[in-house]
C-alpha cells in the first residue's frame, strides 16, 4: 500500500489550500476528488469574493480556483480526479475508486475536505422535473453554459440563494421572486440589493405551498406564514415559472468522518468535533471546509491552510516557531472573517438593529432587499459633495475591505477592523478612476455627480450598453425612474469583466438611480 504524508479528500478550496501548505513544507501529498475537474465549487463562483485584500477579496471564485490549481501544480501535488473515496478507516487507510478499480492508500495524515451537500425543502410537487438545487443551476449555467430555465423562483435568501439568483439574471433568465420563510433576508444586504434594483421582488415570511405541472413545473404557489409557520389564508400567490430553485442551506458531508469513527456533533448539521487546528477526535485525521461547519470559501481556504500547517508541524516538517508564527497569522485572518452582522453568532438573528458603529440596520434592506432614498443618507459611505465622488451603499458589517485598497487617493477608509462600514473622506479628491466601483464585491459603490446628474454603476450583464444609447434609470427598488442616456462605458482588464457604465439622468435622480435597463423609458 502506497504511503503519503498527507492524503487530502476533496480538491475544493479547503483541500487544495491544505495540500499547498503541506507540500510547501515538504510533505508528500496526494489529493483525491470524485469530480472530473478540481476546484470544488470555486469554478461555479463567478462573483467577486468578500474578505480582506490579502486573502483574495475582490477576486472572482473562478480566478481563485485557477490560482490554487497553478500553485498545486507548481508544488508538484498529485491531484487524482474521478477518484471517489469510498471508505476510510481508523488506521488511516483510505479506499479510493477510480476507473472501476478500488485501491487503498495509507496516510500519515488525512484531511477530509469533502464539502457539503445541499439541503432540501420537501413540498408537494418538489420531485417534479424543474425543481432543482441552486448548485445544479450553477453547474448548468456556469460550467456548461445552459440556462436552467426561462423563469425561475428561488427558495432561500441566504448568500447562496442571492448569488445564484443574480447569476441567473446574468445568464439571461428571469427571476420571478426570492422566497424565504424567515422574516429577514439571510444573506448580505448588498447581494439582495443587486437583485432588487434589477426588479426581483422578495417575499420574506413566505413559504412554498406547492409546485404544479404536467410532467414538469409550470407554476408554483407560495403563501405567507405566521409566527408558528402556518400559512395565513388568503395570502397565496401563484407564479408561472418553469423552474423552482432551492437554496435552503448546506449540510456538511461528514459521512467519511463518521465512517472512520470520529466524534460527531450537531452544529447546524452533523460535523466531526475538531480542535483549533481542525483535527478530529482521531489522531492524524483532520477536517476542514464545509465538512467541519458551513462557512464562506474564504474561511474554508484558511481552515485548510491551518490543517495543512498543523499536519506539517506534527510530522516534523516545520519547527514549532514557524508553526506558531504562521498559525497566529492565519487564525487572526480567520477571526476577521467571523465578525460582523453575519458572524456565526449573529447569523439568522432577527433582533439585530444596529451596526457596530451604532447606526440603524435597515429593516427595508432585510425585508425587501433595498435601502430607501431616505435611509441611505445615514451611512458613512454616503456624502454630498460637489463634483464626482464615490457613494458607498454598504450598510451592514461585512468582513470586506478591497474598496479601501482600490482608492489610491484616500477617498475611502475602512480601517483595521475589516467589518467596519467604509467611510468617505470628504477632504480627499476623487479622480473618477472608477476602481472602487469595479472592485466592490457587493457592487455597492457608485460614482455620483449630483450637479451634472451623472451616475456610474457597475454593470455585469450582456450585452453592455453602448455610449449614446437611451434607456431607463432604475431605482434601488427596481422601479423605472426616468430616462437615462449612456454617456460613458469603461472596460478594463483591471475591472475584471465589470463594465463601468455612466448614465446621465435628471439631476433629481442622481441619488436615486442605481441600475439601468435598456428598455425605453415611458411615463
Amino acid at each position, binding site marked *: 500500500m502506497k504511503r503519503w504524508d498527507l492524503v487530502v479528500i476533496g480538491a475544493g478550496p479547503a483541500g487544495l489550500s491544505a495540500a499547498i501548505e503541506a507540500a510547501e513544507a515538504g510533505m508528500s501529498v496526494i489529493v483525491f476528488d470524485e469530480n472530473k475537474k478540481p476546484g470544488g465549487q470555486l469554478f461555479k463562483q463567478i462573483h467577486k469574493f468578500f474578505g480582506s485584500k490579502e486573502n483574495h477579496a475582490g477576486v472572482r471564485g*473562478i480566478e481563485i480556483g485557477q490560482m490554487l490549481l497553478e500553485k498545486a501544480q507548481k508544488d508538484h501535488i498529485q491531484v487524482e480526479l474521478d477518484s471517489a473515496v469510498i471508505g476510510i478507516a481508523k488506521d488511516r487507510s483510505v479506499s479510493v475508486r477510480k476507473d472501476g478499480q478500488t485501491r487503498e492508500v495509507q496516510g500519515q495524515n488525512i484531511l477530509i475536505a469533502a464539502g457539503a451537500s445541499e439541503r432540501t425543502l420537501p413540498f408537494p410537487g418538489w420531485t417534479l422535473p424543474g425543481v432543482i438545487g441552486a*448548485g*445544479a443551476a450553477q453547474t448548468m449555467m456556469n460550467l456548461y453554459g445552459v440556462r436552467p430555465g426561462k423563469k425561475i423562483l428561488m427558495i432561500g435568501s441566504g448568500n447562496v440563494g442571492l448569488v445564484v439568483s443574480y447569476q441567473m439574471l446574468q445568464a439571461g433568465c428571469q427571476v420571478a421572486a426570492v422566497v424565504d420563510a424567515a422574516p429577514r433576508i439571510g444573506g448580505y444586504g448588498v447581494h439582495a440589493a443587486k437583485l432588487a434594483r434589477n426588479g426581483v421582488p422578495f417575499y420574506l415570511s413566505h413559504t412554498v405551498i406547492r409546485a404544479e405541472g404536467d410532467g414538469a413545473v409550470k407554476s408554483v404557489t407560495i403563501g405567507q406564514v405566521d409566527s408558528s409557520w402556518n400559512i395565513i389564508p388568503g395570502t397565496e400567490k401563484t407564479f408561472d415559472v418553469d423552474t423552482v430553485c432551492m437554496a435552503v442551506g448546506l449540510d456538511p458531508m461528514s459521512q467519511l468522518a463518521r465512517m472512520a469513527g470520529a466524534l460527531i456533533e450537531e452544529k447546524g448539521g452533523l460535523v466531526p468535533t475538531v480542535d483549533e487546528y481542525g483535527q478530529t477526535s482521531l489522531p492524524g485525521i483532520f477536517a476542514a471546509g464545509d465538512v467541519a461547519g458551513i462557512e464562506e470559501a474564504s474561511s474554508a481556504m484558511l481552515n485548510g491552510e491551518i490543517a495543512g500547517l498543523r499536519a506539517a508541524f506534527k510530522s516534523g516538517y516545520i519547527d514549532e516557531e514557524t508553526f506558531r508564527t504562521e498559525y497566529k497569522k492565519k487564525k487572526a485572518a480567520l477571526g476577521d472573517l467571523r465578525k460582523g452582522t453575519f458572524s456565526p453568532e449573529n447569523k439568522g438573528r432577527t433582533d439585530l438593529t444596529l451596526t457596530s458603529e451604532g447606526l440603524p440596520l435597515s429593516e427595508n434592506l432585510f425585508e425587501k432587499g433595498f435601502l430607501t432614498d431616505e435611509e441611505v443618507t445615514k451611512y458613512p459611505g454616503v456624502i454630498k459633495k460637489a463634483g464626482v465622488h464615490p457613494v458607498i451603499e454598504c450598510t451592514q458589517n461585512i468582513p470586506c475591505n478591497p474598496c479601501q485598497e482600490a482608492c489610491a487617493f484616500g477617498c475611502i477608509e475602512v480601517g483595521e477592523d475589516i467589518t467596519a462600514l467604509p467611510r468617505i473622506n470628504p477632504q480627499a479628491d476623487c479622480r473618477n478612476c472608477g476602481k472602487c466601483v469595479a472592485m466592490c464585491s457587493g457592487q455597492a459603490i457608485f460614482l455620483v455627480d449630483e450637479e451634472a446628474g451623472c451616475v456610474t454603476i457597475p454593470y*455585469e*450583464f450582456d450585452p453592455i450598453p453602448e455610449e449614446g444609447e437611451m434607456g431607463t434609470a432604475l431605482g434601488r427598488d427596481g422601479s423605472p425612474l426616468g430616462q437615462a442616456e449612456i454617456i460613458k462605458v469603461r472596460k478594463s482588464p483591471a475591472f475584471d469583466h465589470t463594465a463601468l457604465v455612466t448614465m446621465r439622468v435628471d439631476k433629481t435622480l442622481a441619488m436615486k438611480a442605481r441600475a439601468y435597463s435598456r428598455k425605453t423609458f415611458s411615463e
Partner: protein
Amino acid sequence: MEDNRIVHHPILGTYEKGNLVTFTYDGKEMKGYEGEPIAAALLAAGVRIHRYTLRQDKPRGFFCAIGRCTDCVMVVDGKINTRTCITPLREGMVVQTQHGIKA
C-alpha cells in the same frame, strides 16, 4: 427545437466546447457537445423528464446535477441507472427515458 444555451456570458464570455455530436433521445436525433454531461445537452434541447419512478411512476429530472442524488438516471447505450448529469456525451449515444428500472 428549444435552445437554452447561453451564447455569450457577461463574465465567462464564450464556453469551451467539444465537437458538435449527434445522439438519439428516445429515438429522436439530437445535437450536443462532446464531453458535456448528457443532462446538459438534454436541458439545452428542452428535455426535462429523464425517468419515471418505480413505485409511483412519477416523472423526474435532474436535481443536484453533480452525481449525488441519482434523480437524473436514464438508460444510456442500454445501461440502466446511468447518471446523466456526470456522464459525458459521446457521438452516437443512445439515450432513453427510464421507466422504473428499464427503458
